[in-house]
């Protein structure tokens, strides 16, 4: 029981970090059908920018998050404009994989050229450093903050997709892009907005989750497949699916690492194989 209570907050926090970063990729893959392996690279850009803002500019934590998100979106614009537009909905997975691996290498190389090849600290504000008393046990305040961020992201996304005009267009474009286009929805604009949203969420997750997925020179490569796996297990384009997959895989990974640390990611990938084999389109996904 004690072990379970020890594992659960960590698993939950890890799952929420996975969710916050992967949900952007999930929406993007549901809509644009792009296997974007560079998604982690945009999270890394967010982490680097936040670290730079906190350490060198000395701004406060919320401002640093804002700088990271907006900065990553701005940096991603030329990539969207010049490269991603060519591979939306067209082209096979192989082309997409290779193009996005190329983009990842490029971003990793440039980031390390500019900021130097050391891991980047993202110092937490005073309020998040200490433990937090839940009444029956103490958990690190940061874990609680991460879980909160994940919940807020999920609710905000759900509201946006279900209740707003943009959400209607987005859902229409996901379900049937050609028909949406024929009905006068300018899908290219929806695509661009979704791309910006995905990058922004990645950067946000990259900063907030830095305690659990530390920002280091090879961040984008290290977690390259993790985010893709989460999306695949959940089903592309499904917020519920991404949430379920993140929590499930977060639990599998954290439990595995607690109980049998020498096996590394063994249990994580066993879970992936079993789930993907039984649900090839993901837990909550649809066949395209």
């Amino acid at each position: 029981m004690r072990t379970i209570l020890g594992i659960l907050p960590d698993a939950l926090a890890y799952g929420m970090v996975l969710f916050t970063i992967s949900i952007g990729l999930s929406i993007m893959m549901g809509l644009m059908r792009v296997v974007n392996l560079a998604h982690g690279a945009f999270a890394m850009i967010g982490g680097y920018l936040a670290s730079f803002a906190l350490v060198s500019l000395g701004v406060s934590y919320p401002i640093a998050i804002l700088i990271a998100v907006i900065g990553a979106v701005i940096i991603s614009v030329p990539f969207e404009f010049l490269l991603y537009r060519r591979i939306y909905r067209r082209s096979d997975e192989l082309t997409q994989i290779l193009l996005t691996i190329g983009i990842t290498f490029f971003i990793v190389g440039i980031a390390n050229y500019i900021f130097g090849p050391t891991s980047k600290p993202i110092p937490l504000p005073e309020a998040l450093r200490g433990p937090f008393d839940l009444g029956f046990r103490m958990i690190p305040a940061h874990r609680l903050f991460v879980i909160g961020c994940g919940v807020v992201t999920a609710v905000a996304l759900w509201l946006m997709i279900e209740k707003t005009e943009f959400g209607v267009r987005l859902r229409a474009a996901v379900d049937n892009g050609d028909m949406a286009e024929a009905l006068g929805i300018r899908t290219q604009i929806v695509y661009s907005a979704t791309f910006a949203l995905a990058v922004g969420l990645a950067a946000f997750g990259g900063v907030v989750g830095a305690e659990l997925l530390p920002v280091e020179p090879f961040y984008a490569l290290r977690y390259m497949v993790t985010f893709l796996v989460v999306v695949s297990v959940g089903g592309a384009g499904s917020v519920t699916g991404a949430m379920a997959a993140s929590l499930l895989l977060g639990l599998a990974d954290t439990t595995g690492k607690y109980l049998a640390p020498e096996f590394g990611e063994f249990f994580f990938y066993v879970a992936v194989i079993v789930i993907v084999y039984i649900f090839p389109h993901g837990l909550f996904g649809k066949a395209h």
Partner: protein
Amino acid sequence: MATLSVPATPTATAGLRNDLIAAAVIAALGAIGWFVFPDDLAFLIRVIGLAFLVISLDLVTGFCGVATLGHAALFGVAAYAAGNACLAGVTDPILMLLIGAVAGAATGLMSGVLVTRFRGLPQLVLSIAFGQLVAALANKLSSITGGSDGLAGISPGPVFGIFNFDMFGRTGYVFSVVVLLITMVLLLRFARSPFALMCRAIKDDTLRTRMIGVSVYPRLVVMYCVAGVVAGIGGALTAINTGVVGLDSVSFERSAEALIMLILGGAGNLWGALIGAILFELFHHYVSAASPFHWMILIGVLLIVVVLFFPKGLVNEVTRRIGDFRQARAAR
């Protein structure tokens, strides 16, 4: 250069001629390597080992259209198997190659059963998961694999009991080139076989092939086994030549690199796979000396350029250009 494309109606004599030309080309490449890099044969041996992996990947990706990012598993398991066999007393290099081939085929069978079941994203993710699973096991089962220290002390006996492996890699190099030559000639024959052509048909239009009564799944699994044999030979060869097998031989990076090499050279063409491996490693050899991050920027740009402007790979692009040129001349 007519040998570079699959002839529409292969005949026995044309086949034999093609085999001879292929053998001559590889022997010539081997000789060039020998004279251009006389002091760096270890580098060339590494390139040949990787070329096997890329050619093997070509069999599943280029011929069957299976997108995989876990192919290094086939290579690495075979390398560990050959290495362990050697440590257990089977020091004959030919036998070690055989053991590698069998281990590779077995891994290919498992991987194929899992990966070729689906298409698209699930396929990709299953291939990644399989590769990572093997990597995690290789790290854990340190009694067999040496864990993160790697498997060391592999010292194979002389080839045919005559040619000892020397520290300059001369025997190793000749041995590798000969194995590559034989494998390549056999594979070029195999690539013209009805089976391989049917795999190409499956890649082009899975639904249509299924409609004409072809059972797709078993064929893809069999092709995966063949690919496993090829990758296994490469893995065993690397174990024989370097004397060590490390965790990097099953890593995700190795799988991704192999895919990059394949696309660089040209998928669906065994020569493309070979040339891609050579070009990538040469590029790596000369550029990465500067700094690993400059290397990453350059390889990223190279990859983007190739995908956007030469989507069929360099070799296929060159043969297409030559074909166009010939046609233009013939029309004149």
